[in-house]
C-alpha cells in the first residue's frame, strides 16, 4: 500500500483511469457542469443548503446498527451496518441527486434526465425533481422495468416520465446510451443527473463527493461505538457510488482494509457475471477509461446479476485505480450468496436489505471468518429491500400460487 494521500482526488484522472471521452456535442454541457461544481463545492451557501436538505428531508445522519445475531454466522466478527436504507427513498442515491438537483438550479436548467438500473436512482431523481419543481425523464432498460415494476410506478407517481429502453441488452448500459442521446438533443434546457461514480469527468469525483457523507458519518459513529476505527469496510460495487462514498473517509487510514463486492452473477467464470474489475479489461465506455466487461473486439459484453442495480458491465474509474494500486480489494458474491445473505439478515435482525446491499453482506460473512473473532467490519447497507420482495418471493418460493399467477 502507498502512503499517498488518496482522499478527495479531483479527477479527471485517477491514475490511468477516468478522463472525459465524450462526443463534442456534450462537452460544453459537461464543462459547464464541471465549472459550476468547482464553484459550488467550495461555496458555504451551497454546502449549507445541501446539509439542511439532508437534515430535514433525507433524514441524515443515518444511524449505524450493530447486528450480533447476523454476525454469529461471520466467525465471531463484530458487524456494524451503515443504514443508508433508512434514507428517504430507501437508498444512498438520494445523497447524490439532491446535490445534483441543487446544481441544476444553479446553472439555470429546468429539466433533468436520469438513467436507472434497479430504479433507486430513478426514484431518487424523480423525488428531487418533484421537490425542486423540475421536469424529469428517466431512462430504464426494458428488462429492468419488468424486474422493478414497482419502482416504475413510484417514478410515475412522483410525476416523472419513464422511458423503457429497448435497444441493446435493454439494461442499465443501454439506459445510459439513451440518456446520452436524449441529452445531445436537449442540452440547452436539460441537465443529466448521473447516478453513479462513473462516466466522464466531473461525474466520478462529483458523485463521490456527494456520497462521501456516508463514510464521514460512519467513521465517527464507529469510533464512538467501538473506540476505534473498523478493521474493514465492505460495500457492494456496480458503478460504485455507495462504495466510494463509504470508502472515501477511510482511504488514508492505512489500518482500515477496504473491500468492494462485485456481482458475481452465476459465478465469476460462468460467463454470466457483472464483476467488471475481476473479469474485465481496461477500456473506454460511457466517457471514462476503466475496467470493462468486453470481448476481444472491444464490444461491451452483457452483464448478468440478479440485482438490477449491479447489472452493469463497467465500474467507476476511482475503483479501478484503487484496485490497481491495491488500496482496495475487489471480490465477488454470486446471486445465490447474495440471496442467502439477504434472507439471513432478514431472519436474524429483522432488516430486509436491497439485493445490491446483500452482496456486501455476503462479502462480510466470508471476511468475518477470515479476520476472526473481535474484528470490526463496517458494512454499507446501501438500500432497503422493499423493491426486491417480488424477486425474493420467486427465488425462495415464498408466494402462494394465486399470487404467482398474477
Amino acid at each position, binding site marked *: 500500500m502507498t502512503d499517498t494521500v488518496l482522499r478527495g482526488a479531483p479527477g479527471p484522472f485517477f491514475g490511468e483511469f477516468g478522463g472525459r*471521452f465524450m462526443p463534442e*456535442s456534450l462537452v460544453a454541457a459537461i464543462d459547464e457542469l464541471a465549472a459550476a461544481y468547482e464553484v459550488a463545492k467550495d461555496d458555504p451557501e451551497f454546502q449549507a443548503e445541501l446539509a439542511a436538505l439532508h437534515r430535514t428531508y433525507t433524514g441524515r445522519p443515518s444511524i449505524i446498527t450493530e447486528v450480533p445475531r447476523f454476525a454469529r454466522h461471520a466467525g465471531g466478527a463484530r458487524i456494524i451496518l451503515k443504514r443508508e436504507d433508512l434514507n428517504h427513498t430507501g437508498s444512498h442515491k438520494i445523497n447524490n441527486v439532491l446535490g445534483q438537483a441543487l446544481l441544476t438550479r444553479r446553472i439555470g436548467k429546468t429539466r433533468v434526465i436520469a438513467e436507472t438500473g434497479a430504479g433507486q436512482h430513478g426514484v431518487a431523481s424523480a423525488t428531487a425533481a418533484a421537490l425542486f419543481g423540475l421536469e424529469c425523464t428517466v431512462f430504464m432498460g426494458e428488462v429492468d422495468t419488468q424486474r422493478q415494476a414497482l419502482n416504475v410506478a413510484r417514478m410515475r407517481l412522483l410525476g416523472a416520465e419513464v422511458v423503457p429502453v429497448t435497444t441493446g441488452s435493454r439494461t442499465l448500459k443501454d439506459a445510459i446510451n439513451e440518456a446520452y442521446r436524449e441529452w445531445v438533443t436537449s442540452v440547452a434546457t436539460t441537465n443529466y443527473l448521473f447516478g453513479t461514480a462513473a462516466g466522464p469527468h466531473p461525474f466520478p469525483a462529483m458523485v463521490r463527493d456527494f456520497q462521501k457523507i456516508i463514510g464521514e458519518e460512519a467513521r465517527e459513529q464507529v469510533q464512538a461505538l467501538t473506540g476505534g476505527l473498523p478493521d474493514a469496510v465492505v460495500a457492494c460495487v456496480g458503478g460504485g457510488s455507495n462504495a466510494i462514498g463509504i470508502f472515501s473517509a477511510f482511504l488514508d487510514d492505512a489500518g482500515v482494509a477496504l473491500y468492494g463486492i462485485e456481482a458475481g452473477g452465476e459465478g465469476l467464470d460462468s460467463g454470466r457475471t457483472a464483476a467488471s474489475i475481476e473479469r474485465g479489461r481496461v477500456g473506454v*465506455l460511457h466517457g471514462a477509461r476503466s475496467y470493462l466487461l468486453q470481448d476481444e473486439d472491444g*464490444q*461491451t459484453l452483457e452483464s448478468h446479476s440478479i440485482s438490477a442495480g449491479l447489472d452493469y458491465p463497467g465500474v467507476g474509474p476511482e475503483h479501478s485505480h484503487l484496485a490497481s494500486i491495491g488500496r482496495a480489494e475487489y471480490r465477488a458474491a454470486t446471486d445465490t450468496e447474495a440471496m442467502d445473505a439477504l434472507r439471513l439478515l432478514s431472519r436474524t435482525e429483522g432488516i430486509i436489505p436491497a439485493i445490491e446491499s446483500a452482496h456486501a453482506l455476503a462479502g462480510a460473512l466470508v471476511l468475518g471468518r477470515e479476520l476472526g473473532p473481535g474484528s470490526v467490519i463496517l458494512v454499507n447497507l446501501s438500500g432497503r429491500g422493499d423493491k426486491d420482495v417480488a424477486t425474493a418471493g420467486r427465488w425462495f418460493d415464498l408466494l402462494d400460487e394465486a399470487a404467482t399467477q398474477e
Partner: protein
Amino acid sequence: MTAAGGGVASVIDARRDAGSGALIGYLPVGFPDLDTSVDAAVALVENGVDALELGVPYSDPVMDGPVIQAATQRALAGGFRVRDVLTAVERIRSRVAAPVLVMTYWNPILQFGAETFARGLRDAGGSGLITPDITPDADTEWIALSDAYGLERVFLAAPSSTDERLRLTVAASRGFVYTVSTMGITGARADLDAAARRLVGRLRDAGAERACVGIGISTAEQVREVLGYADGAIVGSLLVSALADGGVARVAAVARALAEGTRSGRPTPAH
C-alpha cells in the same frame, strides 16, 4: 488544419475548385453482410459519391440514431469483426479510387491496438478516421498515431461548442471538420437546421479550410443547399435505409439522385 497531400482533403478541394462540393456517403461495414457492404460502398462511388465513410459497428453507439443502430446491431449479430473493416477498405480501394474514411467509436480501436489499426488502415489504402466519441483533448494516442502514419483525423464540431473549442477542433483536424447540423443524433430530417450554416460560419472564423455537414440530409435539394455554404455534404441514415429496404440497386439509385445536388451551379456562398 493544414492541406493534406491526398485523401479526402484533396477530393474536397478538387470538387470545390470545380465550383461544387463533395458528396460523402456513410455505410456500416458488415451490413447486411461484409460482401454486400463492400458492393454497396462501391456502388455509391459509381453513382456520384465522392468519398466514403465506413462505420464500425459497436455495441454502444451513443451518437447514432435508430436506423444506423438497427443496421449495426444486425452486423454485430451477423458476426462482424473489427478486422473486417480493414478487409472492406482494401477491397473497396481495389475497385474504386474514392478516398475511404473509417468512422468509429474509440473502444474497438483501443482494443484492436490503435497503432496496429492505424498501420493496417494505411496499408489497406484508407485515408483516416472520424471519431465521434472522442475529442482532440480526450487523452488518446490518436493524434500522434495519425501523424506517424499519415492518416487524416476528422473531429466533430457541434452548435454547442464554444469558440475556444472550435479553434481546438479546427487546429487538430486533418481532412475536414465534421459539422453536426442539428443538436440531434443522426437520422433523416425534413429540414436542415439553420444552426449548421451558423456553425460552418463559426468554423471558418476559427480557421477551418474544410467543413462538411452531416446528420439530417435526405434530398438532392438539401445536398445543394448544404454545398452552398459547406465543402461537403454527408449522408448516412438515408443510404442505410435504402440498403436495408432495397439492397445495392436501391442504394445506388438513391446515391445517383443525391448526386444531382452536386451538379448544378453552386449558389453564391452565404458567408
